[in-house]
């Protein structure tokens, strides 16, 4: 873990009309860190992630991702990040191999690099037999793992994971997190949101959002001490109230 922030956010505000989705967010994320982004539905997490991944622009405040400015350099941001969302980013009617070649091409990787990463990926995940199977044929857990591998195929500086382990069995979930650990060891920063509170414990640091603001940010250990809680879930319940309708 280095000391240079790969994500640097100061007083980020995002408004939709008069509704303030992100209210003065300030935080930094460091290289190789696993950063957990928690909060109730409607707290503003998705809005913030969209801004960080270059998909939308802030209303005000300073936002730098991988050194690029979120207002004017969104294309550069996109080139340097990976993204895996809940609803799979893989094409169901294409095979494993075709998906990898496609994404490799989109990321601008050379043919030989794609080929070598493909081989690497298949052997690491023990996927060799699935190379020519379509995604729709794969069980959920495998799809998840593949989607993650594709998101980091081009070795980006940061990868954003939006609830990546929803509904998956406990063993696959853990295997997935081991992949995340491995990725972080390689120096890729992992920015992840999740509803599984025990997964929050796997993170180096965790932030909790509530009604557009960040109400807690620290390592899981320190948060538990601060709020006198046994688990991050307890911390969460203590401070994150459901979205007010």
């Amino acid at each position, binding site marked *: 873990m280095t000391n240079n922030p790969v994500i640097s956010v100061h007083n980020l505000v995002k408004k939709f009309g008069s509704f303030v989705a992100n209210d003065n967010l300030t935080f930094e994320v460091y290289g190789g860190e696993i950063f957990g982004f928690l909060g*109730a*539905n409607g707290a503003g997490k998705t809005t913030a992630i969209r801004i960080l991944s270059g998909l939308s622009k802030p209303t005000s405040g300073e936002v730098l991702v991988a050194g690029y400015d979120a207002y004017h350099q969104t294309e550069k941001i996109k080139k340097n990040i990976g993204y895996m969302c809940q609803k799979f980013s893989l094409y169901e009617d294409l095979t494993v191999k075709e998906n990898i070649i496609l994404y490799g091409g989109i990321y601008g990787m050379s043919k030989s690099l794609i080929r070598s990463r493909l081989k690497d990926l298949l052997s690491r995940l023990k996927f060799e037999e699935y190379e020519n199977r379509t995604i729709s044929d794969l069980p959920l857990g495998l799809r998840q793992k593949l989607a993650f591998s594709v998101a980091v195929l081009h070795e980006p500086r940061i990868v954003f994971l939006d609830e990546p382990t*929803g509904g998956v069995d406990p063993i696959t979930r853990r295997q997935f997190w081991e992949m995340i650990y491995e990725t972080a060891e390689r120096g890729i920063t992992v920015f992840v949101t999740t509803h*599984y509170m025990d997964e929050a414990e796997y993170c180096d640091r965790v932030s909790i959002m509530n009604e557009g603001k960040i109400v807690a940010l620290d390592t899981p250990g320190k948060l538990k001490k601060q709020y006198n809680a046994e688990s991050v879930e307890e911390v969460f319940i203590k401070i994150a109230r459901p979205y007010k*309708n």
Partner: protein
Amino acid sequence: MQKVIESSGINKSFGSTKALNDISFDVNESDVFGFIGPDGAGKTTLFRIITTLLLPDDGELKILGIDSITHFKELRKNIGYMPGRFSLYQDLSVEENLNFYATVFGTSVQENYDLIADIYSHIEPFKKRLAGQLSGGMKQKLALSCALIHKPALLVLDEPTTGVDAVSRSEFWDMLAKLRKHKITILVSTPYMDEAMRCDRVALIQNGHILTVDEPQNIRDAFPRKLFAIRSASKYKLITTLRKFEWTNTAFPFGDSVHVTFTNDTAYNSVIEYLTKEGISDAAIEETKAGIEDRFLELMENGAKA
């Protein structure tokens, strides 16, 4: 105590995929019975068979003493069903949704209001709001109210807490607990292992097989080995190193520690030494009680039935 559900040998296939394998279980009256398992385990398929929406390939299923296959029409009057995705009419208001379901089941909102009062009171201030504009937690409450409004003997809830934040999930289980006093039997499915502890009885299900059926405490207590929790600041290194230890049976990350079982009863004495040698100097070990998830993992690893 009468058995609300009696089932044995239920099988169901879709094409070449076997979704349910020889499912047998019983549910007692007034129980909160949980089906715990990940996506693809077969929970939704089983629930659809129970609510008579699907026919099993074979097996027997008696609900409220009635054969569910031949007498499904009667059963449908006595079952309240809340499928995944909440299935509310997005373009009708809260009030209108509730009134519709009450009417379709031949009752009125007033008649059984006491049953849903606790739940509905949270959303009553918004009764004119369109269902599509409610938050996840509110939709949950509305869907539950609609399923209960005709005072069914059996309430079937398919993953009601999925995709909802931890606070709402906890509230939801509080609401279910309060329903016990009305003698309604509740069948719930969920992928969240910790919710198993809030049920009277639980079936762990994976890949169409039931791994075990019992009270949650018994499932937990039946963990076959000693379980240890080892902590260290270098989480990933800890796991990989532990896996290389010669006496490690299983090692799974669990929040801020790693849950380990050993093949040798005395191995736990030497593991710290080993870890220190491998470069992890801050490891701490303590024996811990197994939780539902530990048991689930153990059952999955062994493919055993208990």
